[in-house]
């Protein structure tokens, strides 16, 4: 079976974010980039499925700018077979990214298309279900796990206060969150092999962004807090402050 995993290059979650001088972008200087952590769950899911079925192919697909090749190589080192880079900016308008991915996916005839639940940069959680909708494919979002029996996929998705179970036939789209698929580390052998795996580059066909960034800003500073006291004897004063000053209780 052909499995396509859509991934994104994002800053490491430990990175401090500095705004660029133009006021509408992030200063990339000194930022370490990684595969968005949710996308690693999706890659792992794809690899496990391929291993379980005994044959098939895992293809990585990403829309991004220069440097994304490096991110795709990291995914290839985990075990994916080949990669396609759609060159363009995957910005805040997720529909642009979804259109670019859908245009490529239309030609690929995949049985299963996997995404991370969201990019760890923009946190919009929209490109997966948008892509599925554009392709007219069934889709489960934020699945913590799934099972494939024959051609039928059963997904479990956590929601407030419980879980929804969704069932669909392939071809289908699933966005993955933390749960069943703990990503593997790339082995040295995998890293060496990744250098020789095919990585195709083409221009993204997603159109213009219609969500316009006016400005970026830092979060408002929280006013300096205070240490109420030390040890358990500070508890009564804390609770009094929560009631009378913060009006939080």
């Amino acid at each position, binding site marked *: 079976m052909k499995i396509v995993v859509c991934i994104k290059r994002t800053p490491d*979650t430990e990175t*401090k974010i500095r705004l660029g001088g133009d006021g509408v972008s*992030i200063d990339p200087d000194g930022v370490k980039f990684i595969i968005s952590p949710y996308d690693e769950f999706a890659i792992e899911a794809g690899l496990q499925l391929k291993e379980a079925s005994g044959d098939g192919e895992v293809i990585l697909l990403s829309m991004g700018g220069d440097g994304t090749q490096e991110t795709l190589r990291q995914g290839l080192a985990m075990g994916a077979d080949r990669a396609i880079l759609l060159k363009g900016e995957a910005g*805040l*308008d997720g*529909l642009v990214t*979804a259109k670019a991915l859908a245009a490529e996916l239309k030609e690929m005839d995949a049985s299963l298309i996997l995404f991370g639940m969201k990019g*760890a940069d*923009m*946190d*919009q*959680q*929209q*490109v997966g*279900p*948008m892509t599925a909708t*554009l392709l007219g*494919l*069934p*889709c489960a*979002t*934020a699945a*913590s796990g799934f099972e494939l029996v024959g051609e039928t996929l059963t997904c479990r*998705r*956590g*929601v*407030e*206060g419980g*879980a*929804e*179970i*969704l069932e*669909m036939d392939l071809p289908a789209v699933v966005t993955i969150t933390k*749960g069943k698929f703990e990503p593997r580390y790339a082995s040295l052998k995998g890293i060496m092999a990744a250098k020789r795996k095919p990585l195709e580059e083409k221009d993204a066909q997603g159109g213009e962004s*219609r*969500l*316009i960034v*006016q*400005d*970026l*800003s*830092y*979060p408002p500073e*929280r006013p300096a*807090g*205070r240490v*109420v006291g*030390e*040890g*358990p004897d*500070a*508890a*009564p004063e*804390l*609770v009094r*402050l*929560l009631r009378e000053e*913060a009006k*939080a*209780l």
Partner: protein
Amino acid sequence: MGDVLAIVEQREGKIRGVSSEVVSVAARLAQGLGGAAHAILVGGSGVSAGATEMGRFGAEKILVTEDDALRDYHPQGYAQVVTDAVREGGYGAVVFAATAQGKDLAPRVAALLDVPLASDVTDFRVEDGGIVAVRPIFSGKAFASLTFSASPAMLSIRPNVFQAQESAAGGGVEAFNPEGLDPSAWTVRVGEFQPSGGGSKDVAEASMVVTGGRGMKGPENWGLLEELRDALGEDAALGASRAVIDAGWRPHSEQVGQTGKTVAPKLYFALGISGAIQHLAGMRTSQTIVAVNKDRDAPIFQVADYGIVGDLFEVLPRITEEVRKLKAGD
């Protein structure tokens, strides 16, 4: 084009609390755009019973689609109904809740309408007749102000951030029955909803959150956190840091932070949490933050409004006891 549609959310026929926030935001937007706020509620037969309640928050008209095939959330069915309603009403803006359901539904509707979507919005204003939506990026390490160059403007709002505001609109209920609703064409089959045990509120929706970190030393000590949660009442939920989830002490649904949930409760307790940058990103928009940690230099104290330095296992039971006393006196 100045009318605004609010998407009301129900589960098991009961309208969810966040919907009053969504309708209130729609009413404020409509006021700025010079139009009216409407709401739409989708569910099984009988769901309309609770719909008029949304009028209290400023909806001048409440559309209700009642169909037993739509009793539980169905991604394709709900997307079709909402898309049809937006098309027919010619709305200038559409507001969803950024809940599990809203985050699934809004992108589908946006794709069907071919318009962009601003997810998880935490602030907005109307400027020169257009909407400026403000939303966190990098889990709150920065904020982006966005404008829309397509109509309708689609946004989902973060729960707990906006006040539900009563207003006098008080509109009536109107049946909305889109043509061509054909459940046999839906390619997703939705199974029975599986409620989680305990009945506790979800961490992303609770107005009070009690979060434990590695300083709790092990899952066997979570009873102490549960006692504080219970003392705070039914609006309180448990959270956990990433270290706790990675150690397998608690389920991922409780994780607060950049690879978990972003929360904005009225009151947040960070207990035995040092305050890694990813964790701070997920909770820094909380209204009041309390931290207890034995290390006075822990970064969590830089964002906490109130801190206690000390042994968690001594301090926490005393806080619970004091909260109980306070509640007993109410």
